[in-house]
């Protein structure tokens, strides 16, 4: 019998046939290909976090090949001359080796650190997007809670990673963490001694942090991310309101090839930017800090940005200590307990429960798949602005010594500014945001009723000047249009309704040359056409 000739063109089909015979994957696979994603720039923020996490796993694995999580003291004999002959822990020495004696080790270390910062930043910005647009409302409360937990897990993971190299800064951070544990009433000392295996620093903490940092916490994060995405796929993406978009459909692109290609391309861009950062912008130069010595610290010792707000809250805390005398023994609740244990506890609880609190107070328990513009829910936007202001005041206070130094301000004045600011600025942010939202709402209604401002001033016979408005529909006898607000962008400029050519933004000329309008354009009625949402 003649052997059939191998035809490379038939190969993919043959493989697909082989697999389908065994797995029967044709229809689920096609369903995946055909899954529709809505398109909006703000939907890619979470992707940045996902991609940063993948990069963290890749670079972190490389680092783990060389890092020794041991506090055993050795004398350094590596390439970095200024530290030669100095006694240090193996952890610090192997981190130095990673930076100086492993080919390409430094760039991977720096990419890892930058990726961690970007991971947390992307989570925060993504979370703000979800919050301000109401994407957490029913049915997505669970995914909000998972995402919120991911922030705090990332926080702990980042802190553990920051503590591993055992340089002066990480040791100082650990000592503060120990003090925070000690401050917990009743069980504090037991918690601290259980984690450090005795009095600070002991010799087991680096090994414990290491297993937590490379296995325990990333494992939980990975599982939660998988769950986060599984819920996203099951519940389908939210979308902005717009023509043809309802609570019962998703309007957008099918996942393959377009959407997936954009996602893949975006991963490459995130990776590329992080590679550039890792190569060009120095971060955490541990060789300048020196090994951790309990007696040494320098000024301007700041943690990574996402920890700074707790550093700030600690700095602003007034010196209030609670002392209790019972049964002939005194007990202490140190001031550290409130800003570092109670405050995060409140933040976690409030954040986790926010979707349910809002349901309760706004009496809205309905299903929502359409997003809300922040201006349409001024109370929520105000609360969000309040949270951001709170975070910013604390974060700035976390670096108040640097600000005081650079701007030649009294350090004590900075502390007092923070103490007063934390009470005044968040309510102020709430009030301003609330007013701005109402103003924007009103302007939307005004344009819908009177039309777009044309910038053309007309002089009336009686000498008065009026601006000519372009109505968005046929006006009634009073020149008013009764257009309903649909929860989406109201065109406010003439080029938005096609009356003049679209503005070319930036300095890249688009391939599609904007067409000049050739004839008088009628009041735009084509708002009802279904578009992909790109503007």
């Amino acid at each position, binding site marked *: 019998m003649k052997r059939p000739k191998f035809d490379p063109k038939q190969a993919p089909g043959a493989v697909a046939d082989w697999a389908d015979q065994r797995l029967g994957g044709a229809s689920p696979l096609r369903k995946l290909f055909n899954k*529709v994603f809505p398109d909006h720039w703000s939907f890619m923020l979470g992707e940045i976090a996902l991609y940063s996490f993948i990069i963290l796993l890749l670079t972190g694995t490389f680092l783990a090949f060389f890092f020794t999580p041991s506090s055993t003291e050795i004398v350094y004999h590596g*390439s970095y001359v200024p530290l030669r002959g100095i006694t240090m822990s193996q952890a610090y020495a192997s981190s130095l080796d990673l930076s100086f004696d492993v*080919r390409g080790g430094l760039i991977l270390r720096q990419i890892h650190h930058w990726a961690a910062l970007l991971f947390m930043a992307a989570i925060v910005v993504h979370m703000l997007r979800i919050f301000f647009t109401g994407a957490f409302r029913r049915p997505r409360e669970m995914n909000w809670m998972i995402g919120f937990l991911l922030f705090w897990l990332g926080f702990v993971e980042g802190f553990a990673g920051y503590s591993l190299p055992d340089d002066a800064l990480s040791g100082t951070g650990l000592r503060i963490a120990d003090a925070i544990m000690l401050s917990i009433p009743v069980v504090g000392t037991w918690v601290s001694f259980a984690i450090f295996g005795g*009095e600070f620093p002991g010799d087991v903490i680096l090994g414990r942090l290491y297993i937590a940092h490379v296995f325990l916490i990333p494992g939980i994060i990975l599982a939660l991310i998988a769950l986060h995405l599984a819920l996203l796929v099951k519940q389908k993406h939210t979308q902005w309101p717009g023509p043809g978009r309802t609570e019962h*459909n998703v309007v957008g692109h099918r996942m393959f090839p377009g959407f997936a290609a954009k996602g893949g391309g975006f991963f490459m861009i995130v990776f*590329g930017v992080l*590679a550039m950062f890792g190569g060009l912008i120095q971060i955490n130069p541990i060789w300048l800090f020196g090994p951790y010595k*309990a007696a040494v610290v*320098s000024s301007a010792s700041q943690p990574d940005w996402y920890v700074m707000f707790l550093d700030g809250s600690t700095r602003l805390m007034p010196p209030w200590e609670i002392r209790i005398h019972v049964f002939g023994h005194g007990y202490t609740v*140190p001031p550290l307990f409130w800003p570092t244990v109670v405050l995060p506890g409140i933040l976690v609880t409030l954040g986790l429960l926010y979707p349910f609190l809002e349901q309760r107070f706004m009496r809205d328990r309905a299903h929502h798949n359409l997003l809300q513009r922040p201006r349409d829910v001024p109370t929520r936007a105000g609360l969000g602005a309040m949270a951001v202001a709170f975070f910013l005041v604390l974060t700035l206070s976390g670096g108040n010594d640097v600000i005081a130094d650079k701007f030649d301000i009294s350090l004590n004045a900075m502390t007092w500014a923070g103490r007063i600011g934390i009470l005044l600025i968040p309510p102020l942010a709430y009030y301003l945001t609330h007013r701005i939202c109402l103003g924007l709402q009103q302007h939307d209604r005004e344009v819908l009723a009177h039309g777009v401002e044309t910038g053309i001033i007309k002089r009336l016979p009686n000498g008065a000047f009026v601006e000519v408005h372009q109505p968005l529909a046929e006006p009634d006898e009073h020149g008013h249009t009764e257009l309903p607000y649909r929860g989406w962008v109201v065109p406010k400029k003439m080029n938005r309704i096609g009356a003049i050519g679209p503005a070319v933004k930036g300095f890249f000329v688009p391939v599609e040359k904007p067409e000049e309008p050739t004839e008088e354009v009628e009041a735009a009625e084509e708002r009802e056409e279904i578009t992909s949402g790109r503007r």
Partner: protein
Amino acid sequence: MSNTETEHETAEFDPDDPKHTRFDLVREGARRDGVEIVHYEPRFTRPGSKEEKRVVRFVALCFAIVGLAALAFIVAYVAWPWQYKPGSNLNKWYTPVLGITLGLALLFIGIAIITWAKKLLPEEVSVERRHDGASPDTERKLTAATAMSMVDELGIQRRPLLKGAVALGLAPVGVAAIMPLGGLIKNHKSDLLTTAWHKGVRLMHDDGTLVRPEDVSAGGQITVFPAIPEGNSNKYADSPTLLIHLRDDDAKRTLANALPINKGAQWQNYVAYSKICTHAGCPASLYEQQTNRLLCPCHQSQFDITNNARPIFGPATRRLPQLPITVDSDGYFVATSDYKVPIGPGFWERP
């Protein structure tokens, strides 16, 4: 288009029908997945137009840059001198060169793919139906019945003995499962109350030499450690101490201010305070000579050295404990006892 659509709905779809284009099959597949492709057209009305060629050239150029940058990365990784050398030299550029080449390669892959997806793939709008909310009522009832029948089959409701036995039997197992964590628990009774200092321990510098009064000039301060083996290591993280040589008038004031607990701790113009901040345990190391204030750089607690190291600003609530010192017959500083109160951050059981 509307004609063919109605046809699809009425007739049984035959994928082998030669009249169907591939897109007809795609559309039918999407429809079966609950997706309606409502708008689909090529990005360029005339295939091979000038604009299309421009985009194609741009994407090709991007991939060319990717190839070059990746190649440059490989060459740099292998051939660029990378080992650390002091001073300014080519080796210092190793990491930046890797970053630029790798970054460019990855960035341009991204730019190429996204341009391809945005500018060359057909324009499309698809609408997918959502099937939100709870399952159909019948489904729920069937599932609930299945679940309830599991309970029935076990008969746990009818057999109270089993109910009790299961509860009593499994509760200890649940507790037993967390017992291994007990290995973490350490007794801590005295560790936080004492340091390495006690009567007769001399003061030493970080380099191990003993401290004499003339080692510190007036108005100056140094960090000292207990002169025991590894006294300056992190093993005794609670023991670093600040030895301050006060000027005459400051010393007099300090002596006059001394609280009962600190009486006799001062030796002539020299005082020694714990360096570990009573707030969060950072070393409080910034000494302002003019005002005799000690500042902790972590959270800016400030202590007044001339008044028992009382906290005068910031979140710290307690004074830095003072180490009682004297000078022995050999002329070296020596501690006359441990600190009188626990050093460092506060904790619940602190006496």
